[in-house]
């Protein structure tokens, strides 16, 4: 069972690569120095910098080194920023002709669904998207498929062994949905675990969240509340079912 989306996995592996590199460098250095430049107490200690009590010691610096480890990390973070940038365009894409096109026109004779495509970097684009509504309330989720066909979007409830009765949202693979969300009382946040995404649901304000359901998703996954909302926050769960 993979909880990671391809987009997350791609970034994750890239970051792990650099983390191992930077960490390895720093720890290698640390281990070397902490075993190489040591002395037991009582040895004749070389007082390289003539440290003396009440005297500000001699500067021990090297401009080239200091500039080097200002510039090199800077270049690295510029690269990481650039690398993290691209998925943002897809995540916050416009609802008008962005990566997911326009809202589907079901009367159009050429309409064949979202037909979303996953690109090699995990970014998903679609022909058009469907709109659904999510409402958060202490302490349950309500899904509304609006006027979508039941094959595209369906809701229901199910009694789960551990969570008790939870709402179920059934979506179709290969389709892209735009969730328009609002809260009735306090702030909530649906975490679509296997879509790797969440967004706060605010009272009095609308927020939106893209749900591009891709083909390789696990059939059943959980939706949890990720923004603390009071007593029964931890069991404010829902189930996401995706089907062909």
């Amino acid at each position, binding site marked *: 069972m993979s909880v990671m989306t391809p987009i997350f996995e791609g*970034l994750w592996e890239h970051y792990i690569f650099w983390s191992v590199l930077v960490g390895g460098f720093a720890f290698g250095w640390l281990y070397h120095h902490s075993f190489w430049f040591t002395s037991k107490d009582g040895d004749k200690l070389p007082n390289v910098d003539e440290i003396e009590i009440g005297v500000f*010691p001699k*500067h021990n610096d090297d401009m080239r080194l200091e500039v080097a480890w200002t510039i090199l990390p800077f270049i690295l973070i510029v690269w990481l*920023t650039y690398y993290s940038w691209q998925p943002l365009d897809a995540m916050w894409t416009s609802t008008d002709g962005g990566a997911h096109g326009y809202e589907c026109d079901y009367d159009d004779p050429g309409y064949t669904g979202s037909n979303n495509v996953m690109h090699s970097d995990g970014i998903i684009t679609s022909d058009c998207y469907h709109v659904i509504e999510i409402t958060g309330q202490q302490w349950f989720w309500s899904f509304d498929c609006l006027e979508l066909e039941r094959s595209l979007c369906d809701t229901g409830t199910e009694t789960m062994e551990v969570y*008790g009765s939870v709402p179920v949202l059934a979506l179709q693979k290969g389709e892209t949905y735009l969730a328009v969300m609002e809260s009735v009382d*306090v702030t909530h946040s649906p975490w679509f675990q296997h879509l790797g995404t969440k967004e706060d649901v605010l009272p009095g304000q609308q927020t939106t969240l893209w749900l591009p359901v891709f083909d390789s998703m696990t059939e059943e996954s*959980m939706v949890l509340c*990720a923004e603390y909302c009071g007593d029964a926050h*931890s069991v404010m769960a829902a189930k996401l079912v995706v089907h062909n």
Partner: protein
Amino acid sequence: MPTRSWLQSWLCITEVKRLVTKRSKAAIFTLVIVAAMLALPSAQSLPGGISGVQQSGCNCHGAVPSESVSASIEGLPESYNYSEVYELTVSFQGGPSQEGNINQGGFHLWASEGALSVNDATAQVYNENEVGHTDAGNDQVSWSVTWTAPATDKNVDFVLHVNSVNGNADGAGGGTSGDMWNKVVITLGGPIEVLEAANPFVVLGVLIIVSASLLAITLAYVFYRKDPEAFEWDNFAPWLADWLTSTDHKKIGTLYFVAGLFFLGVGGIMAMIIRIQLAVPGNDFLTQEQYNQFFTLHGTTMIFLAAMPMINGFANWMIPLQLGAADLALPRINAMSFWLQPFAALLIFTGVFSGHGADTGWTGYAPYVVSEGAHYGTTMWAAGQIMLVASSTLTGINFLTTMAVMRAPGMGWMQMPLFSWSILVANVMLFLSIPAFGVGLIQVYLDRVVGTAFYDIAAGGDPLLWSHLFWYFGHPEVYVVIVPSFGIISEVIATSSRRSVFGYRSMVYALAGIGIVAFIVYGHHMFTSGMSPTLRFVTMLTTMLVAVPTGIKIFNWLMTMHGGSLVYRTHTLWALGFLVTFTLGGISGMFFPSIAMDTHLHESYFVVAHFHYVLVGGTVFGFFAGIYYWWPKATGKMLSEKLGVLHFLTAFVSYNALFWPMHRLGVWGMTRRHHTYFVTTEEALGSLPMEAAGWNMFITVSGFLFFFSNFIMVFNMIVSSVRGEDAPDDPWGGWSFEWMTTSPPPAHTLYRLDDGSWGLPTLKDANEHIANEPGLLSSWFQRLMVSDDEIEEASH
């Protein structure tokens, strides 16, 4: 629920088990616990909790229980025998039930232990803890069921709900009008009596009271040690009053330490209770409501009542000494900063004693924080923190003034020891950011008390406004608690390596850089908050920048060791440990500004792992290094190196075992602030893979090891105070002024000068540039300053 009882008995710190076997030895300890529990009646009057176990399955008719219905269980023994089978008769009397009703009533019975089963078709089994009536059995007033007692010593709770109905079931409104219900709770013991299953609040309350009593006893003992001859009230009262009224920076520093370490312990106990709850999936050791209060108070306690006082403890002790000053600029304000804190702590903890502690998380997001659903302890949580804000503001003013005006002659800004620099940067950040938090808290307090409408959604209130005010403070705040540790580590690594710190100037610029960046990155806490994408993108860029100054610091520390001769002492070990854990925490921090990853990681255990890596592995490890480093100076006694190394080894290993696996749990999808979690099994879908359960147990065990390993340090301190060796003035070979005075320093600090006399020192400079020559900026600034003497001249 076998885990429940196991953990509950474990919670009584295994003393309960020992009591059963070694009753005589543990009797005194038990008496203490029982007496403390009796002394805490208010903590007993708690809500039943909403765990749902007792209530689920009972769709009781009507809102409130009715006195006129009385329920009973017959056939229960006084105390059960192991595994014996008991036939029970459940019945009720009273209420609207009458002869000839279609529906006379129903029942639902829950037993915490053992197994329930049914005898006929009038009742059904939900699971082995729960039985209820069937459709066939809902026209009766009594039913019979079977209960098999558990095979070990348990306290068994029975909760029976009954409905008494008037028979209008097919009438309007679902037929529940006029119906009545009631419940009865029966507790039963085994052959050997077991203590009541502990209420976690009682445990916390007891632990707090026991620790406070220990504190009082310690105080009395410390006084006794001071002069055993004069151990009487007439001497004790003025001695105590002197501590309560002192404006001496050293005494106040000590008070800060005592308070900080005490609350570090309290916060640690809460963390342990949280970990017991999370040890296994689906645990019900704590109810959700209790868990919510525990994590809220854990966060608030650790940040505001443990970390901040410890920083102030270090700063109070060391800043005047490092600057070569006699005291702080405003001693009485300093005393005020301190005394606001214990009273604030009392307010914050009022909720615990009433059972309705704040349950908002330390972030206290609006509008939940001002909703009536949040416990009313939240009001006092806000009130206490308002006092802490006042305290921090006064501290900031005091230390900035001190550092601006009381540096010894010869000590320019760029000759200040790095620890002083770190406190300067921390206080600039603090006192420019905390007023925003203070105003936010006052808004919350007013909303909750006098009914203003700052966060009233119906009136147009904006939940994001609180988030902005909070994180405008909250992000600088987390740097405020880490930056002083940077200072300590800089001192410790340089002194231990017998070198001057590498790149002093770039260290200072990096600190200042962190101080500036702190104010423009806070939006990264709000990447999924509905804030505008433009702002999110900007803070993504700025957050990435944080890596640059922290990177400079880490590389400078590493380079300081180069060519030096590292002496391994306890504080050196902690500093090297800090370098490991803080680097790891820094690297994991770089995952968050990548927003496409953050949308998955936000509010997950990956975040928990990250900030514990920087706050425990960074801040607390830095504190430990500082404690081992400056303890001889402050007390005049050496700490045991052996115990110190033991503390480091156990704590460092268990610490990493505790927090490292949390990264993986977070990626798997474990959510923060959830009182429990469920793993996916072959039968049922949960939110986490199976392995998560094992790792959580591992974390809990490591957590306990980490918790207890820190008592080695406390023990070390006690041993050192009682029979430690006397400390020399400069045991480690540092250069700054604090090593120029005696250990411990006199009340009104005097320094040993070159000519052997005592007085206030002047700093010399080993570098070739002319000491005391102000830099470009400084000389420009000086032109703005008209000395007060000159003003007086002019007015003559």
